[in-house]
Each structure stands twice: as C-alpha cells, then as structure tokens.
C-alpha cells in the first residue's frame, strides 16, 4: 500500500488559498524523503469544486479526493470535520498537512481530536526522519514556541495520521505544470442531520481583511517608536509611494493603534516580501520570526542597540519622523526621473 502524504486544499467559494500549493510543495519533499511508494494527494471539500480539483493536479497532487456537496458550500466546523474524518478513516494517510490559516487551525484541531491523533500547530519546518531506535521515518514537525523564543521539534509516534498545520508563506509553492497528470476521485458520504449544528446567517465584508499581508511583495511596518496611531499615516504614505502595504508590530495592535490584520509576527502573519521596512520596531523575537525571511530588510530606529538591526540587511539609526519623509521625497524623485 502506498504511503499517503495528504494536503488539505483550503478553498473559499472555490478560490483556493495559496497555502495549499505551498503544502503540495513541501509534501512532495517529504514524500521523496521516504521513498518511491509515497504519494502526494490533495483533499478537497466544498461545492462545485471541479476547477479547484483540476488546479490541484497542476500543482502536483497525484490524486485529489473530492467531497462535493451543497452542505459543504461554506465552511462550518462540524460538517467539514465529519468529512475529513470520513476520508482519513477510509484511506489512512500517513501524514496530513493543513494550512495554519484561520480556517485550517479551526478545522485541524477538531479533526485531530475526533481521530484521537496528534497535531502540531503552526509549523515552520518539516522533515521525515528517524528518532532514536525507531526504524520508521517520522514527521519531524518544528515550530516556534514561547512567543518565538524557542523552536521545538514535535513528533507523533504511535498515532496516525501525523498531522500538522503549516504557516502560510514559510514554504515555496509547488511549481505549476501545464500538464495535469493525476486523477480526481469523487467521494460520497452520507450527510446526516446531526452533522449540521450551525448556520451562517450573513457575511460581512471586512475592509481590513483585504490587506493580504502574507503575500505582499513590499511591506512598510511601524512599531511602538511611532508614538501613536497617527504615525501610521506616515507609514501608509511611504507604503503607497513604494506600492506596498502597511504592517505593524504587536505592540501597536495591542495599543489599539491599528487593526490586527496588519500584525506581523508569531501571533500575526508570517511575511516574506522582497522589501520589508521596519520603522520604530525594536525587534522582539516574536516580531522577527514573522519577517526575517524577507529578501531585503531596512530597519529604522533611534536606538543603535535595537535587536531589529540583527536581522536587517541595512539599518538606519535616526528619527523615523525625519528618515521616512526623506524617503518619501527620495522615492518620488526617483520615480519621476
């Protein structure tokens, strides 16, 4: 029997969350670490899922199992938990990866509990490896803990599947191929009334949720050094001039200066932009773990000893209220040149 490496293909209204393609990429790496009988498979639950299923094949899923039913049109915890539990019990995957998104964390916690198996949350590094005398290769799931001060590698030895949620933007997406080689398998399960214990009455669009910080290529972030909520107007002005979006440290979110959707860090979003400007951010570990993989980090801080400079590609020691206006002026001049 094949060793199955499963990826949950998260979607909303048929639109797949990009973390699913990142998971297909890392699942391929893991499968290759255990040998030829390992397969990478996608799991899709929803309604009218044909296009999404086809897309998953392009991103390297060898099989996509689809549970397509009007009940699954919108995500609700219990119907989706029941669906995944059904599929896992039928096919016995060895490893099951879910994006550590709002939806994924809600779902994975419930699925793992209903299967009485182990789940490692919010992982940032994954590998298959042996542990002590155990000859089998296990999933070594590594994650930050204690606000990013420690990284811990977690294993799940005697329970199956070995589950992990994986932070978006930590792994590169699988390459999309023109040809889709794999197969789509339509599954059916009985929908019982007890599976439905909640209903969505209404959707409200959330303007701040459109930030999409984790996939932005240019981010200008502000920290406590801004001194107050008004400082974000300046941050926004530089972000606009650069064609980027506004980020924030946790301190500013906790102080109520800006919405949580902008928060970068362990308890916010992990970002990997081409350019990350950190203005007035001291650089607590909890912030650094969320942005240190950015291609170019420019740190601006009055304190030459601020830990943010340890991860910065370049640092400017100075008053951000002088440096940022000068930057806005400079970039505008260069764009017009």
């Amino acid at each position, binding site marked *: 029997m094949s060793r199955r490496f499963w990826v949950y293909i998260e979607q909303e209204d048929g639109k797949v969350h990009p973390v699913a393609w990142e998971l297909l990429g890392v699942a391929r790496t893991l499968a290759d670490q255990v040998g030829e009988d390992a397969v990478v498979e996608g799991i899709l639950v929803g309604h009218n899922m044909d296009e999404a299923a086809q897309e998953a094949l392009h991103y390297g899923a060898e099989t996509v199992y689809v549970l397509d039913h009007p009940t699954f049109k919108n995500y609700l*915890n219990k119907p989706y938990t029941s669906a995944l539990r059904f599929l896992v019990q039928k096919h016995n995957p060895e490893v099951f990866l879910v994006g550590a998104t709002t939806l994924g964390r809600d779902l994975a916690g419930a699925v793992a509990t209903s299967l009485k198996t182990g789940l490692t949350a919010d992982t940032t590094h994954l590998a298959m490896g042996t542990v002590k005398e155990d000859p089998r290769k296990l999933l070594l799931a590594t994650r930050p803990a204690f606000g990013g001060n*420690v990284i811990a*590698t977690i294993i799940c030895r005697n329970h199956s599947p070995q589950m992990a949620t994986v932070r978006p933007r930590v792994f590169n997406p699988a390459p999309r191929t023109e040809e889709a080689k794999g197969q789509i398998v339509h599954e059916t399960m009985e929908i019982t009334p007890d599976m439905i214990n909640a209903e969505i009455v209404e959707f409200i669009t959330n303007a701040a949720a459109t930030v999409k910080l984790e996939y932005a290529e240019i981010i200008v972030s502000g920290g406590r050094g801004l001194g107050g909520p008004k400082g974000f107007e300046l941050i926004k002005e530089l972000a606009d001039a650069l064609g980027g979006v506004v980020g924030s440290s946790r301190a500013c979110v906790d102080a109520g200066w800006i919405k949580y959707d902008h928060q970068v860090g362990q308890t916010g979003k992990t970002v990997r932009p081409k350019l990350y400007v950190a203005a007035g951010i001291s650089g607590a570990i909890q912030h650094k773990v969320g942005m240190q993989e950015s291609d170019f980090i420019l740190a601006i801080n009055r304190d030459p000893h601020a830990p943010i400079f340890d991860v910065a590609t370049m640092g400017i020691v100075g008053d951000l209220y002088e440096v940022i206006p000068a930057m806005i002026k400079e970039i505008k001049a*260069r764009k017009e040149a």
Partner: protein
Amino acid sequence: MFHALVSIKQVPDTTNIRIDPETNNLIRQGVPTILNPYDAHAVAAAVEWKRKLGGKVTIITMGPPAATTSLRECIEMGADRAILISARQFAGADTLATSYVLAEVIKEIHAKDPIDLVFFGKQAIDGDTAQVGPGVAVRMDLPVVSYAIKIREVNLEQRYVIIERKTESRNEIIKTSLPAAMTCEKEIAEIPYASLPDLVYSLRYEPEVWTSESPIAFDVPQLGLKGSPTTVFKTGTPERHTAGEVFKVAEVGLDSAVKTAFDKILAVEGMAAMVGVKK
C-alpha cells in the same frame, strides 16, 4: 438564568522571556505569569452577558496551584465560581490530553448545573496552538464558533446564540443552538474595572481544587504525558541571522543614509520595476 463557563490558562508572559545566551535554555526564573490575554477578554465577555441576562460565570483551569492567582483575577472581574484542576498526572499534557480533561470537567459541571455557553480564548500565548477550544467542542459534541469577535444575541428561551466571527477574508454571523462553545478574539469584550466588592471578595477567594481522582475519576492513560500523542523530540533556539551594515544619520547625514538605502534596495533584482523606478 445564564450559565457561562470560561476555560482559562495561566501563561508565562512571553514578551518577557529571555534565552540564556550560553546554555540556550529558556530563562523562566523571574518571568511573570499572567492570565492568558485572550482568556481575560473571554472572561470579560462572559461576565458582561451574565450581567445582561442574570446568571453566573464559572471559571476552570488546568494547571499548578500557582494558577490560583489567575483564577482570583477572574473572580475580581466578576466571575462567581472557580475550579483549579491540578494533579501531577496532568503534567506534560499536549492539546489532545488537555481537551480530554477539560471536556470531562465541563461535562461534570454541566450535569449538575447546565451550561449555556463555553468560552475559550482563541489561543494561549505560550503554545499558540488554538487547538484546545475546538478539541473540547468535538469531545462534547458542541457547536463551536472560533475567532469570535462579538456576541450579537443570546436567546435562552429559544435556545440559540448569534455570534460574529472573523475569518481571513470576511466576517461571518453564525447562528447555533445552545449549549455551544466559542473561542474569543480580544474584540469580544473590554476588560472591565473591578468593582470594590468583587475586588475584596477575590483577595480571599479560594478556588475549588479538583484532582485526577476526585470528583472525577479520570482514565489515567489519557492524562498528561502518557495521554499525549505528540512529544517534544528536541528544542533549540531560532537561527541567528547576520546583521547588515548600519548607518547613523548623526554621522553620515540624512540625505546620504536615505540615498544609500534606495541604492541598495533598488539593486535587488526586480525591485526597481516593482516600485516603478526606471533603472
């Protein structure tokens, strides 16, 4: 009468944790422990609705005796009863073993004094897993609304609740039957100022202590480290990055620092085109 139960955790204040640079160990000594911030807001919401509807708020926590201080903090905020679930056998529990204990405790309370709504913080700041709330709900077969930002309506006659929750792309208004469970964002309620009687009462309040044997005889193999499917294989400190060049405005001047920054930034492949600067 409304009966709310809030499950809380006492956590180290992760913003104050440091690593010993020589041993790479976590320095726990002197790190203050606090009531998990999300849980504090969950307690505030439970108390707010108790005051609206009449009723009571019960707090539970699994942890060492020192967690009593966090329970007292909840009493100070207006909770009525607090239970400390504490025994050596519970130590080392992962989220599955934790949800087992909490679910059994909530079932026991519920059997004697029916609960309408079970509150959790969305996650604890030490583990950041966000798994325990949904896990307990699954074990009790309760509907669960996670990432809740507002309770719109609690209807005790018709036995439903309407809760607004936040997803990554939008907010959803969810209606579900009671009893139900929810995990709370900080927006769920403001932390109230303690009233003087509550403050005085909390100082002397002694929580009930439940052990692994009484009043519930737990299934020991499901407890603590033994009952945890996940184990920590190894720990380490995060990779250190190498620091780049630092320019001091006071030394090189503002103009030079900013120009150097953009020379370097725009030299990154693809950056100039992205920003809209002609090379």
